[in-house]
């Protein structure tokens, strides 16, 4: 370990954020910039009979108004992942128009954009646009969308299914095993729809420079290069080298800012039309209606156990809502990011999952923190606990019985699951053991039974999760339907003075890349962190990139940088050898200098850098310069895992749940910066607890959203949460150079079932075996009454 790796180095990005000097997209003002406002549908499903912009056009300050009848109405945003029907039929992929022309398919779909000199004028004029709609019946529930006679979201097909997919063992074989099982536990529930709610609303500014015929889009995205690729190649047909995407400070994403949104392409198009920059920043109300949501699975599941509590088979059927259109990664979420985790940390021998993914009259659903893995973990960790409860077993004991034994992926081979993946390394029982020790499990059970005698309802919930991060390699994901590679790019440019600029295709929107990446770069080069600058979020600066999501930045992006560092050191050694008049093999590199082994003869990194750029005395045939770029395509996913434990008390009179303790034991492989990893876990846990107890996007039957603001969409506030107790076990990833696994989503994956298990545990003696999320006081109270 070096000077910085593994240390809780304070973040270098903090100074600007703490002083109010961050530059989020909405903070940017361009000369002659115009402002825009959208007219959005108040209906979930409707025919557009007429759009009258005549009054609006006359309003003060209006620069332009566009509707679906303008040229922009011909463009559509594509999906980035193709998942076909299990019978071979191609995925149904509707066009997602930039502005609706004839038909509305979800509440809040954009009908008209009004561009004006000021934001006030744009808003005022937008109110004057008259749209005549004929409201049509809507369907918002994924299961109901597949019922006979359900309103069709797209008329091009005879059902709402985008695809119907399965994974695992033969269904009949799984069913037969369930028939024979000693005990079968069943569950039916909804993994409710969530709104990601990054605190910075989406914001875009498009600019067109007529001189260079060049577009610039400033956007609050997690994924600048992919936005450029999709927008240029699939939406607007623009040459990529004429388009620059800038995404500097971004105020949180949690998935919702990965995707290419219609507004990005529309503004880019409009900027050229009007010859001026145009800005749009979402209101929170608009965000609820238009940001991609998460989850929305309707689940029916059966798990079979033998008499010892060993799982013998697992069969699940799900309806996973896609919303009205297919968002960029939507099809991958309930399939390859979900079904592939159905093995969990258990030795389940037979698994089958069927997923029907229907269109509904709702905003598109896509990856939200964890993406498919929280939904898989929720199912596994709830159903195994429910099974234990039904069979009179202890929740920890049943898990110990079913764990895959420890394996490090080096001495012992990786673990091949029934659902396509090969886990890299794992030690699942160690994490559970550590968590139970931290809790004082046996003592808690005593306290719980004492409390019950006094009418107090205490409960503990355990969740032992696994997830898959840094999805790769590209050839595999390509075979699974991805329309992009999932490698990452890392460029290391050593400046003549020995200062280092690193360009990464990963993107930080809170994760602290500028610090963590600089930590390992400085260590690997043996130089000071202050001499390393991390650049990201600008397609003109960074060669290419695949952005940040799926906890991939360090495992994939970091590894790409390591590859370039290796090349730097390899070339540096040649220069050093020349300068020291020694053989390369006789040199060793440490603490920022090459030394001839066993002597005090050395040359510094800075000297070598200068020589590379002033190659007067230089190895023959070697190119000047010290600047390398690498693409890293991992050989496998990484598989973080861990144990989360929640302790709750339920108010017997009101059903209110108090989260008293939360213990998170996470194994994310090697840890670069413990402070940042802990912070990621805290945040993930808060979001997972949010899903368990508070959060829910609710649409009514007609497709109106009844939780469209912070007055009705409940998110955790400071007084909803306790301090979060974090612990780690460390099982390095065997296949990437840093041995890291990823920490961004773990918190949100393990926590949700832990909390629900705890509440059910608190009420178990009352005969409660399941409660639907979110566990609102009313819901819990009603469960207690039955």
């Amino acid at each position, binding site marked *: 370990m070096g000077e910085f790796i593994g240390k809780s180095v304070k973040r270098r990005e903090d100074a600007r954020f703490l002083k109010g000097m961050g530059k989020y997209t909405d903070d940017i003002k361009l000369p002659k910039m115009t402002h825009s406002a959208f007219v959005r549908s*108040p209906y979930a499903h409707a025919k557009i009979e007429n759009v009258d912009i005549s009054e609006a056009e006359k309003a003060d300050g209006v620069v332009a108004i566009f509707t679906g009848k303008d040229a922009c109405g011909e463009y559509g945003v594509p999906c980035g992942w193709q998942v076909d029907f299990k019978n071979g039929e191609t995925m149904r992929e509707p066009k997602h128009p930039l502005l609706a022309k004839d038909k509305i398919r979800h509440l809040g779909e954009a009908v008209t954009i009004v561009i004006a000199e000021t934001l006030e004028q744009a808003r005022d004029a937008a109110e004057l646009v008259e749209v005549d709609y004929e*409201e049509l019946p809507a369907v918002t529930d994924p299961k109901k969308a597949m019922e006979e006679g359900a309103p069709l979201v797209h008329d091009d097909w005879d059902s709402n299914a985008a695809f119907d997919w399965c994974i695992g063992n033969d269904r009949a074989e799984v069913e037969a095993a369930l028939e024979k099982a000693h005990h079968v536990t069943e569950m039916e529930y909804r993994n409710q729809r969530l709104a990601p709610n990054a605190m910075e609303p989406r914001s875009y500014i498009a600019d067109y420079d007529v001189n260079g015929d060049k577009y610039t889009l400033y956007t609050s995205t997690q994924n600048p290069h992919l936005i450029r690729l999709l927008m240029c190649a699939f939406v607007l047909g623009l040459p990529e080298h004429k388009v620059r995407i800038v995404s500097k400070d971004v105020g949180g994403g949690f998935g919702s800012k990965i995707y290419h949104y219609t507004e990005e392409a529309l503004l880019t198009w409009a900027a050229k039309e009007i010859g001026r920059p145009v800005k749009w920043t979402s209101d929170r*109300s608009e965000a*609820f209606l238009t940001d991609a949501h998460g989850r929305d699975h309707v689940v029916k599941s059966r798990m079979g156990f033998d008499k010892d509590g060993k799982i013998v088979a697992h069969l699940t059927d799900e309806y996973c809502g896609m919303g009205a259109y297919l968002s960029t990664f939507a099809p991958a979420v309930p399939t390859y990011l979900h079904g592939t985790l159905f093995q969990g940390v258990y030795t389940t021998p037979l698994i089958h999952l069927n997923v029907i993914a229907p269109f509904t009259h709702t905003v598109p659903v896509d990856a939200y923190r964890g993406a498919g893995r929280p939904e898989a973990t929720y199912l596994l960790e709830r159903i195994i606990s429910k099974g234990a409860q039904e069979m009179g077993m202890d929740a920890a004991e049943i898990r110990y019985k079913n764990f895959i034994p420890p394996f490090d992926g080096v001495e012992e081979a990786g673990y091949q699951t029934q659902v396509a993946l090969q886990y890299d390394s794992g030690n699942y029982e160690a994490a559970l053991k550590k968590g139970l020790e931290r809790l004082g499990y046996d003592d808690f059970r005593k306290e719980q039974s004492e409390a019950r005698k006094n009418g107090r309802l205490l409960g503990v919930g355990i969740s032992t999760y696994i997830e898959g991060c840094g999805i790769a390699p590209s050839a595999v994901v390509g075979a699974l339907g991805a329309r992009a590679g999932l490698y990452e790019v890392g460029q290391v440019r050593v400046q003549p003075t020995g200062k280092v600029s690193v360009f990464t295709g990963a993107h930080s929107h809170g994760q602290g890349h500028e610090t963590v990446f600089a930590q390992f770069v400085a260590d690997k080069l043996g130089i000071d962190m202050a001499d390393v600058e991390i650049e990201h979020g600008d397609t003109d600066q960074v060669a290419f990139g695949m952005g940040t999501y799926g906890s991939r930045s360090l495992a994939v992006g970091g590894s790409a940088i390591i590859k370039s560092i290796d090349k730097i050191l390899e070339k540096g050694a040649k220069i050093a050898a020349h300068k020291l008049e020694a053989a390369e093999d006789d040199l060793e590199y440490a603490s920022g200098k090459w030394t001839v082994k066993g002597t005090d003869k050395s040359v510094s990194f800075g000297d070598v850098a200068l020589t590379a750029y002033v190659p007067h005395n230089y190895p023959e045939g070697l190119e000047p310069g010290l600047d390398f770029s690498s693409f890293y395509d991992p050989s496998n996913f990484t598989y973080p895992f861990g144990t989360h434990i929640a302790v709750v008390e339920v108010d017997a009179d009101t059903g209110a749940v108090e989260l008293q303790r939360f213990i998170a034991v996470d194994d994310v492989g090697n840890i670069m910066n413990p402070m940042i990893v802990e912070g990621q876990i805290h945040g993930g846990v808060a979001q997972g607890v949010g899903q368990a107890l508070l959060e829910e996007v609710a649409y009514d039957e007609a497709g*109106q959203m*009844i939780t469209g*603001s912070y*007055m009705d969409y409940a998110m955790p506030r400071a007084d909803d949460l306790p301090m979060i107790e974090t612990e780690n076990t460390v099982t390095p990833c065997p296949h990437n150079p840093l041995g890291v696994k990823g920490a961004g989503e773990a918190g949100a994956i393990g926590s949700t079932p832990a909390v629900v298990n705890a509440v059910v545990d608190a009420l178990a003696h009352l005969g409660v075996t399941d409660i639907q999320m979110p566990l609102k006081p009313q819901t819990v109270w009603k469960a207690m009454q039955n």
Partner: protein
Amino acid sequence: MKIKGNYKLPASRSVVWDMVMDPEILERVTPGIKELKELSQDQYEAVSEVRVGPVKGNFTGKLSIKDKTEEEGCTLVIDQKSKMGNVVAEIVMNLASSDEGGTDVTYTGEAKMSGTLASMGQRIMSGVVSTLSKQFFKSMEEEIDKRSA
């Protein structure tokens, strides 16, 4: 959203029925209604200004009466549009003679809202309907008082 309630009016069924069927009276007693224009038999164009605490908006649209059974009941169909969202409601109203000589009015129905009204108004909507209904019947009562005076 479900709407239901009942109210006792101190007048006979025939008086209450005639009042409900009289657009002039309806215009006077219905909270917020500024203008009720008869389009055809039992079909009206309504212009209203609804003011409930923080919410104030102008609505326009149709109001019609169907399934009429003299002195027994009818269905009120409301379809009102505004900048902040639209309201569509169908309310079944039944009249029954009460023991004390008055009329028991019971109403049940369903209201659908859209737009900002729907997404922002959840917390208060059942209260709004309750208050508006009370206002309606209180005005009816005043109208009855006026007539009997």
